[in-house]
Structure formats: structure tokens, C-alpha cells
């Protein structure tokens, strides 16, 4: 308001100077009181020159400021773009090459189960692809079980999903990715690949994009896989496993059951699973 008043008053200034204002004066207060004709013209032209110089300087300064602001903005955009590109490159390089494909005979594989359907012992593992303990279990004891008992027809080994809340959403997506791979008969290859890449201290390694890349690296039908993963086509199967885990009071991974008997891994370690298998085989008369 105060400013508006000030602006309203300004035009009155030359009018107040009245008769002293020379003809042709533009109304500037500085030019309003000349003493004689000639010097006043020189002064006016000097002042006009000054004012035009000041104007062009002002214009230059304004333009310079605009250029600086624009340059800073462009530099900021370029820096962020560079950071994003480098960040993505780092991410896309994150997945290693897939492990060698499973050598299990195809007739021993049924969705996420391996082994003969009529094997005397069933081993059920509740696991999470983002859990470090599950990773070491899958890469250690599970391999022994496969070689010694699954391939010999003694054990039917089934994998059940229990993606833990603290590992989500990565663990849930990984579980869904494994199911989508199972749909193409490649559950165990995806399982090995997921445990190769997951189960690290980072604990949330998988994004949908990364899982899609991994499926492509495994040579799966990517259109089918991508559609399956984005729709979580087998989400119900994953959730059914989670509900079963809850029903069995399983809340940590890996949790192992041998013929329905829970193995106390905390007390016996992973070797306890082998002991339990041997005991179950002995009970079945195959020890």
C-alpha cells in the first residue's frame, strides 16, 4: 500500500515545479531547474547519455544474471542426469552371470519340488531368497541332500516360500519370480540364481527390473515371465505357503521339516537335517 501511494505521488512532482520547468522537459526532477539554455542542453544530453549507458549496463547486468542462473540450472540438471545414469549402470551390473543350470533329471522336478513322488522321506524347507542363512543353507546342505538323497530317490525335497516382512518387497518379488520360473519348468535354476544374488547384508536386493533381467539371463520366455511377475500371477501360491508357515508356527527361515517333524536347527545346526533324514530313512527301513 505504502508503495502504491509513493507511486501515485510521483507524477505530481514536475507539476509542482511549475513555471521553472523548461519547455520539452520530460518531467525529471534533476532536469527541472536549469539556469541557462546552452549548458542545460549539454547537461541534458550528458544526462541522457548517462541514463542510456546506465540502462544498457542494467540490461547487460540483467542478461548476465539470467545467463548465470540458466547455466547453474543446466549444470544442476546435467549433474543429476549423470548421477541417475551412473546409478542405473551400477544397478544393472549388479547381477552376475547365472549359475550352471540344474543337472537334475526333468522327471524329478515338479514345480518347486525335486525328487521322486514316492520317496520315503519328504523334506520341506520354508525359506526366503533375501535371507543370508537361507542362502548358506541352499548353497551348502541342500546340495548335499540333492546329491545323496534326492538323486537316489530317497528324498522328495520341497521348497516353500516365507518372504519375511523385513525383507519385503524384494523377498516377495523374488518368491513370485521363482514361481513364474516354475511355470516354465525352471524353478530350481531361478532358485540357484536368486540365492547367488540375494541373501546379502543389503537384505532387499530385488526389484522387478532386476528380476526381469535375471529371467532374461536364464533364457526364460521373457514376455511370459514379465507378465507373470508384474501381475504376481502365482501370488496366491506364495501366500498359501505363508499361511501354512503361520499355521505351523514358523516365523524364521530356514525352517526345515523332515516327514512333518520340525528340525531344531538352532540346537543341532544344519547337520541336524541330515541326521533327521537318516533317522527317517532308518524308520522307513531304508537306512
Amino acid at each position, binding site marked *: 500500500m505504502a508503495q502504491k501511494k509513493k507511486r501515485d505521488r510521483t507524477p505530481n512532482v514536475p507539476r509542482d515545479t511549475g513555471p521553472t520547468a523548461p519547455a520539452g522537459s520530460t518531467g525529471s526532477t534533476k532536469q527541472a531547474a536549469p539556469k541557462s539554455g546552452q549548458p542545460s542542453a549539454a547537461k541534458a544530453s550528458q544526462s541522457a547519455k548517462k541514463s542510456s549507458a*546506465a540502462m544498457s*549496463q*542494467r540490461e547487460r547486468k540483467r542478461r548476465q544474471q539470467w545467463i548465470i542462473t540458466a547455466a*547453474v540450472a543446466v549444470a544442476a540438471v546435467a549433474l*543429476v542426469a549423470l548421477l541417475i545414469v551412473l*546409478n542405473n549402470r*551400477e544397478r544393472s551390473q549388479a547381477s552376475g552371470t547365472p549359475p550352471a543350470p540344474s543337472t537334475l533329471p526333468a522327471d524329478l522336478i515338479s514345480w518347486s519340488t525335486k525328487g521322486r513322488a514316492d520317496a520315503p522321506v519328504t523334506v520341506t524347507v520354508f525359506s526366503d531368497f533375501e535371507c543370508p542363512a537361507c542362502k548358506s543353507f541352499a548353497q551348502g546342505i541342500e546340495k548335499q541332500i540333492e546329491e545323496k538323497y534326492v538323486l537316489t530317490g530317497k528324498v522328495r525335497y520341497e521348497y516353500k516360500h516365507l518372504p519375511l516382512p523385513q525383507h*519385503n518387497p524384494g523377498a516377495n518379488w523374488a518368491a513370485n519370480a521363482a514361481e513364474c520360473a516354475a511355470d516354465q519348468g525352471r524353478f530350481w535354476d531361478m532358485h540357484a540364481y536368486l540365492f547367488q544374488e540375494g541373501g546379502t547384508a543389503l537384505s*532387499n536386493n530385488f526389484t522387478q*527390473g532386476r528380476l526381469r533381467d535375471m529371467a532374461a539371463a536364464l533364457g526364460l520366455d521373457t514376455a511370459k515371465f514379465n507378465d507373470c511377475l508384474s501381475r504376481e500371477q502365482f501370488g496366491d501360491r506364495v501366500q498359501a505357503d505363508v499361511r501354512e508357515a503361520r499355521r505351523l508356527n514358523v516365523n524364521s527361515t530356514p525352517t526345515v521339516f523332515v516327514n512333518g517333524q520340525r528340525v531344531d536347527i538352532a540346537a543341532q545346526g544344519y547337520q541336524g537335517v541330515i541326521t533327521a533324514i537318516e533317522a527317517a530313512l532308518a524308520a522307513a527301513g531304508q537306512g
Partner: protein
Amino acid sequence: MSVQRWRPRLELALTLAGIGIAGYLSYVKLFGLKPYCADIGNCDAVQSSPYAELFGIPVAVLGLGAYLALLALWWVKQTNWRNLGELARTGFFFVALVGVLFSAYLTYLEIWVIRAICPWCVASAVVLTLLFALSLLEMVSAREDQALAA
């Protein structure tokens, strides 16, 4: 006009709020703790996602660094320390713009890639956006002032 009068104080308050948010998230990340999320969104999923690090440095720590830089630049521009006020103002604008753009990218990742929202990260994005808006306002008004003074 009142925004101009309050701008420096508002900038300082927002920068300190940003330091608080980024400081908390850095502490949680560096000590491997679970962030307090008040059941809104999934802070843990965002904080432990592969995108929470850039070149091995947690994004929260980078954010803290940016806020501390903004605080230093704010002080230099307000006190015109060693006549570096104008440079600091431009620097403040630059850091705020980088921050707001990177926050936009991180928010995109939260919504579309990680599919989990972390309220702390959203709060930081809002703080940076406001800081950028204030800094833009300052750049524009400073240009006008300088033009008038010339």
C-alpha cells in the same frame, strides 16, 4: 513482501529440518537399525533397497551432506562472508536444484520401482522443494534489486 522478510528464517528452519531428517536416516542406515515409520509406508523397504546407496554411499548420508552444504551457504550468503554472498546465493540455488531433482528421481523410484513409500524421504523431498522455491524467489528478486541498483 512478507515472504521476502521471512525467507532467510524460513530457509534456515527448513535446512535444519532437513539436517534432522537426513541425520536420522543416516544414523539408522549406518547403524543397521529399523527406521521408525509410524505404520505409514515401508521405510525399511526403501532404506534397504539397492537404490538407497549411490557409489557405495548411503543416499541419506549424501542428503545430509547436501543439507550441511546448504547451511554453510546460507550462512555465507546471509553474512556476505568475505564478500562471497552472491556466489553463495548462486551455490545455494544450485545445491537446492540438484537436491530437488534428485529427490524427484528418488520419489519416482519409491512409487514405481521399489513400490514402497518412506514418509521420511517424502518429507525431505518436500523440504528440498520448498528450499528450492525460496532460493528461486531470492535469485529472481536479487536480479531485480541489482538491476535497479545498477
